[in-house]
């Protein structure tokens, strides 16, 4: 009897201790996240119902800020630019990164060093990437236009003209972030089993067939993760636009974050800027949810 009673009491004591010590481990994280993210989010949501411009006056305006932006064609245009950039950059980066991963994976000698060197752009800050490309793509003194001229190809005004500004920024982002897609997909490729590919080769499948019916379906979970990360980062783009066009010419490269920056720090409409960010956060959340839903369905569909 006493043998049974003792462990019971002990385990009860232990479980209480576990409960307490859990908070000791997780507590600091909760405090830090509370200050740095929960507080600002709640503050932003509350302030988006007010009118405030750095002064002392604080007026409750209800949904007025929301109505103002949701009926403002410029707001939708800027959202359009953000989507344009994201779709463009993510598509190019994923296709290019995937191609690179497949190609570099075929190499024997020198594969390691090539992979390492291709990773370098990821180590560079977005603002430095932006300034570098501003020099490289300078319409008159830039090396890129010089190359194009020497090959008698048409040159471009790059960041300077409304039609080429956004594609130029997509180009810059591609140089910067394709390596992320490449690195993650390379690791994904190396984690795949070899037998199906050997079998396919023996059966006379072409390289494309092996890619389409073996590599792609097996890689799809990794691909989905890469897509989600790149999409979030591209929607949040700021530094490379701030450093190259600053949103111009006119507003053709203005995106949500540069709009929020200008609204708060140039026009000093604080609460409006927070309204923009609250709406935009909901849009990002919705997009990520669509991805996750889509991802939940794909494996079931592709499995034979």
């Amino acid at each position: 009897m006493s043998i049974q009673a003792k462990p019971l009491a002990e385990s009860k004591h232990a479980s209480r201790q576990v409960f307490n010590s859990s908070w000791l481990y997780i507590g600091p994280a909760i405090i830090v996240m509370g200050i740095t993210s929960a507080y600002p989010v709640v503050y932003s949501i509350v302030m988006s119902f007010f009118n405030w411009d750095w002064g002392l006056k604080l007026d409750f305006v209800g949904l007025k800020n929301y109505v103002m932006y949701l009926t403002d064609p410029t707001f939708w245009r800027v959202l359009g630019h953000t989507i344009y950039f994201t779709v463009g950059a993510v598509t190019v980066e994923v296709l290019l990164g995937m191609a690179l991963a497949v190609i570099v994976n075929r190499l024997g000698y020198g594969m390691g060093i090539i992979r390492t060197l291709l990773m370098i752009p990821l180590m560079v800050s977005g603002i430095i990437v932006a300034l570098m490309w501003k020099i490289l793509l300078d319409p008159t003194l830039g090396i890129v236009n010089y190359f194009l001229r020497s090959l008698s190809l048409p040159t471009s005004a790059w960041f300077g003209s409304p039609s080429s500004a956004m594609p130029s920024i997509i180009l810059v982002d591609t140089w910067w972030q394709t390596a992320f897609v490449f690195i993650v997909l390379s690791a994904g490729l190396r984690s795949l089993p070899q037998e199906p590919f050997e079998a396919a080769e023996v059966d006379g499948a072409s390289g494309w067939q092996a890619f389409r019916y073996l590599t792609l379906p097996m890689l799809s979970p990794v691909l989905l993760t890469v897509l989600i990360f790149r999409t979030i980062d591209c929607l949040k783009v700021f530094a490379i636009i701030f450093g190259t066009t600053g949103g111009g010419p006119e507003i053709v490269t203005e995106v949500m974050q540069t709009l929020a920056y200008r609204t708060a720090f140039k026009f000093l409409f604080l609460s409006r800027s927070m309204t923009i960010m609250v709406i935009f956060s909901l849009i990002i959340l919705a997009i990520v949810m669509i991805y996750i839903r889509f991802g939940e369905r794909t494996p079931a569909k592709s499995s034979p």
Partner: protein
Amino acid sequence: MDFRKKRLIFTVIAYILSILALIATLFPILWIFSISIKTQRDAFSMPPVWIFKPVWSNYVKIWQTAGFAQAFQNSVIVTVIGVILALVVGIPAAYALNRLSFRGKRFLTLWLLIAYMFPEFLFIIPMYILYQHLGLYDTQIGLALIYQVFVLPFAIWLLRGFFEDVPIELDDAARIDGCTRFQTLRLIYFPLTAPGISATAILTAIWIWNELTIALALTFDAAKTVTVAVAGFRGYASIDWGGMTAASIVSIIPMLIFAAFAQRYIVEGLTLGAVK
């Protein structure tokens, strides 16, 4: 025979394409470096000068002007504080999320993911106002703290992945042998996941070092980081290529050294979540 020939051709094409990718990746940086060691006249000459005598005056100049040295020092300090904070807070949290049970665990996991999704300016303006009141605006510690909004979820998420590899049986064994939770963490987890913790520290450091958006809004002068200092050259983009390129190269170098020494860890960290 035909089979082998086809393979050989593919390999040759793969090498050619890889080298093209390498050129596209490296040429921009090398070109920017070459501008930084040219005289003003050579930098702006068209057609470009390919052979020239390198001058280092731009590098000397940026260290002397516009608080660049101060900004560099600020970046080092903010990065060190930020990484330490992320690890000290993140390691126990990652351990708890993996191995302990407590109320609100699901909510916390979800919140960590959501916080990472939100755009910077959602946090920046409230923090700007709070920091003005608390006197944390334009301070190194304040900046290192606000960075945790992205760095902490990122670190916890990575660390959880690495901790998952530690078999739970080892935990139990240590507990039976009389280790406290903290001793288990220190004696079992630290040695076993040291490479993972290093990877987390390195990726966190790179993230903080390269961050611009938050630093731009929450610093002014005293705590201005190197990215903000480089961004300061933006207005002079058309005139001072020498200073701008030299500043860019100087701020890239610490991260390149990192990459050279810790390449394997970086790859491991970047791929962890996706491939698992």
